C-alpha cells in the first residue's frame, strides 16, 4: 500500500484524538499494518484546535509526525481554518457540515457530511459523533475494515455503550456511501 499521512482535527472534547487512536490501533492489531499516532498536548488540547497525526503504512515508519497530510479530517471551523492549508494537493478533506463551512480554495477532494446532525437525529448522543466520523472515514478511505474498528471498540469502551457506537459507525458508513453515489 502507499503510505498515508492523516490529520484528525477538531476541538478538545470532540473525541478526535480517541478516534485517531482507535483507527491506528485497528490498523496495527487487526490489519497487520504499521501505524504511528501522536497528538498535541497542553493548552491546545483543551479547547482550541486539537489535532492527532496518524501515519499508516505496510513498511516501517520513521518520522512520526505529519507535515503535509494526504487526508485531513476537520470537525470545527477553527480546525479547518488552521489545518486545511497543510493538505497535499489532490488530497482528501473530510468535514462536518454542521460545524464547518468549506471554502472553495483548497485543492482537494472535498467531502462535507451531515455527521453531527445525523448523529443527533438518529442517536441523540453527541458522544458518538467521533465514531460516526470514523465510519465515514473508513468508508471513504478503505484503509481499514469497519469490522476492525468494531473489534477495537469492544476492547476499549464499556459494553453498555457498544451498541450506540456500532450504530454511529454504521451511520457514518452510510453517509459516506450516499455521498459517493
Amino acid at each position, binding site marked *: 500500500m502507499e503510505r498515508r499521512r492523516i490529520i484528525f482535527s477538531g476541538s478538545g472534547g470532540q473525541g478526535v484524538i480517541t478516534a485517531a487512536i482507535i483507527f491506528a*490501533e485497528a490498523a496495527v492489531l487487526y490489519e497487520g499494518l504499521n*501505524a504511528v499516532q501522536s497528538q498535541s498536548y497542553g493548552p491546545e488540547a483543551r479547547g482550541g484546535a486539537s489535532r492527532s497525526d496518524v501515519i499508516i503504512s505496510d513498511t516501517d515508519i520513521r*518520522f*512520526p509526525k505529519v507535515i503535509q497530510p494526504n487526508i485531513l479530517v476537520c470537525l470545527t471551523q477553527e480546525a479547518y481554518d488552521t489545518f486545511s492549508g497543510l493538505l497535499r494537493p489532490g488530497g482528501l478533506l473530510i468535514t462536518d457540515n454542521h460545524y464547518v463551512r468549506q471554502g472553495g480554495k483548497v485543492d482537494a477532494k472535498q467531502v462535507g457530511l451531515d455527521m453531527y446532525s445525523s448523529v443527533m437525529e438518529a442517536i441523540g448522543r453527541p458522544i458518538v459523533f467521533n465514531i460516526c466520523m470514523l465510519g465515514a472515514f473508513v468508508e471513504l478511505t478503505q484503509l481499514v475494515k469497519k469490522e476492525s474498528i468494531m473489534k477495537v471498540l469492544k476492547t476499549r469502551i464499556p459494553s453498555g455503550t457498544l451498541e450506540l457506537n456500532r450504530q454511529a459507525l454504521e451511520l457514518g458508513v452510510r453517509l459516506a456511501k450516499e455521498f459517493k453515489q
Partner: protein
Amino acid sequence: MKKNVLFLQGNEACVEAALYAGLDFFAGYPITPSTEVAELLSYRLPRKGGKFIQMEDELSSMCAIIGASLTGKKTMTATSGPGFSLMQEALGFGVMTETPCVVLNVQRGGPSTGLPTSGSQGDIMQARWGTHGEHAIIALTASNNQDVFAMTVEAFNLSETFRSPVVLLLDEVVGHTREKLILPEPGEINVVERLKTSVPEGTDYHPYLPREDGRLPMSDFGHVHRYNVTGLAHDMWGFPSTNPEVVYELMRHLVDKIQGHTHEISMTKEFHVDEAEILLVSYGASARTALHVVEDRRQRGEKLGLLELQTLWPFPDEIVKKRCAAVECVIVVEMNMGQILHEVKRVSDNPEKVFLANRIDGSFIAPADILNILRIIQGKGA
C-alpha cells in the same frame, strides 16, 4: 505461537519492559511527559506483588528506590527534567553506595519548567555530570517502542551487573508516540538477576570488597549481614575513611568498573554505514528523523548512513571514532545545542568535518532541518 502485538505509547512500552525485567518497587512523583509510567505502574505493580509509592517529591523518590534496592529489590523511578534536577544529590548517593536502580527521564524542553509538553534532548550532559564529584554513569536511550522495551530491560540488567544507577533518557516524542510493540516472550530477552553473596550468616561480609573481576556481590540489607552504607568515602566494610589509599582505590573502582567495560556497555545501531560518504549520528526521537532522511536520500542515490547511539554514557568512543574515520563528513542530529556533537568532535580524527543539525524550539526536528545542513555541506547553497 501468535506473537503478542500491542499498540501503545513509548512510556507504556517502558512499563511493560520494567515489569518484564522484574521491577519490584517504584517510587515517584508524576510529571509530564513521563506521567503514564507512574499511572500504569500504580495499578500494574501491586497486582504482581510489587510496591508503588507516590512520594512527596523527586528527592525522596530517588532515596526510596535506593533504600528499597539495598534490601534486594529491583527498583526504578520516572521523571522529567525538573524532577531529574532534584534527583541529582541522591543519584550521586546511588553512585557512591553502588546501588542498582533505574532512573527514567522522559526529556522535555528546559531549563526549569521550560516546555512541559514538548520534546527535547537537553539533559544528556546532566545525566553525565548532573551529580557532583568525579564518577562514571551509564545512560541509555531509544527511538522506537521495540527499542524502548529492549533498552529498559538492558537498563535493569546493567544496573545489576555494574551495581550502578542507570539513567534511561527518553524524550516526549518517543514517550508519547503510539506504535506497535511485539511483546517479547519470557526468556526471549535475557534478564540479569542480582549477584548475591555466598558468605553465610555469622561470617564477615565485606559489602565493598570487589572480587577479582571487580564485581561486588550484595547482601539484602536488613537480612543476615550487618553492614554500613554511607555517601562518605568508605572502606571495604562500608565505614567512612579518609585514608588516601582507601579513597584512591574506591575512586578508581567506581570509575573503572564502568569506563573499563565501555565495549560491553556500548550499544549502537547502524543503517547503511558501510557504503556511506556522509554519516548521520543521532539517538532517541531525533534518530527517527535522521533515518527518514537517510532512507529517502538513498533512493536518490546519495550515500548517507546513520549511526544510532543507544548507549550515550559511557560514550562509545571506539565505534564513533571508527565510523567517523570512514566517511567524508558527519552530521550530528539532536534536539539541543550540541551536547553529543562535542563528544563526536572529541573522538573524531577530523573534528572540523563534524556538523550539527538541531532543533531547540520545542518543535520536533523535521527532515528539512537536516536537509538544510546537508545542502550547505554538499555545496548546494542554503
